[in-house]
């Protein structure tokens, strides 16, 4: 399985000279399974460039997995070329709602007056799936989607193939103001998603100084994400969902703090950056 990051900014795209190293596009990760499946995690603004990249390849089937429907995870959708290609078999996956279908919730954005085209009219005629409660398969990959603590219905994804696992929790506040180390693992949001993963891409929006004034906003501090990664036993931690107010120098300071908190163990944290590629083989 290979992963490529097309966007790792949180909340709002933040292009400009101060964010060129990490990039300014919002959440979007391309996954290629060894079986050849194309899975996309989230439809942030990074999705536009991924669509351009895919133009020459002309993929026949795309699975787009949405962690939730906040705009920074959806707003690239209208500018994703393959969605408008009738030859593409397009599958949406996302968190269920007790009252509204996934299609209708996406249509709140992809319809006038917010967007000129209605999702019901796009040529690929997409298929919409609420993520199931248990494990499911896409091609050669096994997936688990489970609700996690954020604002509104949100799931994290665990994708495994040939014994290697990527965990994706871009928006996650595993505990609201408490101490993760005092909690048993069974009571920690997203534990089943991240447990023993080879790579964890996780929300790292706030510094420790910022977090106290943002408790309950649905995001993690650097201290949270490091503790969470250590409790869940992940092998490699990738700091994801960078605050739009944090420039590259600030992100470097956050990374240094994460490495300090991590200590001497293997798998020191790294910073997600646009264009970064990961091999999970």
């Amino acid at each position, binding site marked *: 399985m290979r992963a490529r990051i097309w966007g790792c900014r949180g909340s709002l795209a933040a292009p400009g000279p101060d964010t060129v190293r990490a990039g300014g596009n919002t959440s979007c990760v391309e996954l290629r399974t060894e079986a050849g499946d194309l899975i996309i995690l989230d439809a942030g603004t990074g999705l536009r460039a991924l669509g351009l990249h895919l133009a020459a390849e002309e993929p026949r089937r795309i699975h787009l997995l949405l962690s939730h429907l906040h705009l920074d995870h959806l707003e690239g959708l209208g500018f994703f070329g393959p969605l408008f290609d009738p030859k593409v078999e397009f599958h949406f996956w996302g968190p269920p709602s*007790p009252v509204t279908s996934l299609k209708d919730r996406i249509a709140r954005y992809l319809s006038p007056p917010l967007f000129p085209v209605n999702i019901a009219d796009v040529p690929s005629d997409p298929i919409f799936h609420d993520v199931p409660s248990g494990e499911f398969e896409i091609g050669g990959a096994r997936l688990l989607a489970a609700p996690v603590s954020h604002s509104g219905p949100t799931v994290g994804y665990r994708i495994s193939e040939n014994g290697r696992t990527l965990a994706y929790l871009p928006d996650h506040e595993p505990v609201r103001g408490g101490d993760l180390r005092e909690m048993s693992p069974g009571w920690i*949001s997203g534990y089943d998603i991240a447990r023993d993963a080879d790579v964890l891409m996780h929300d790292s929006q706030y510094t420790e100084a910022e977090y106290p004034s943002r408790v309950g906003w649905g995001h993690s501090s650097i201290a949270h994400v490091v503790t969470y990664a250590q409790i869940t036993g992940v092998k490699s931690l990738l700091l994801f969902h960078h605050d739009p107010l944090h420039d590259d120098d600030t992100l470097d300071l956050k990374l240094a703090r994460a490495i300090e908190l991590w200590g001497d163990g293997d798998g020191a944290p790294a910073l997600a950056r646009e264009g970064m590629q990961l091999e999970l083989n």
Partner: protein
Amino acid sequence: MSHNGQQPLPLIMMRELADNVATPLFLVDRDGVLVYYNEAAEVVLGLRYVEAGSLTAEEWSARWAAEDVNGRPLPAEARPLAVAMRERRPSHRPMILMDAKGARRTIEVTAFPLLARADELVGAVAIFWDSAGAV
């Protein structure tokens, strides 16, 4: 719990809520097993949660026996939590509870089911109101 041992998110978030309110809250999982109660509930029940631990529905019903307001024994299946779980609806009633120290407390209990999805019961919550204190 899930196949790997994690509680469903509604239980996790309800426990987090319980830890941050002074309202007595008592939490059971989809099988009716007691999985948590908060400090405010400890006062009503007369026992710290760490001392009680996880108990099946039969065990916690026996540990804290109940009577109706007329002093007649209240069957386990008539208690609000049992009704909320069985009928998937809120349930409320006043009752007399024998706490772990032997005191009889007149309380009111409101219980409601926790549904993760429309057809997926993951547990239930009971809220206690100590209406007359220990007798």
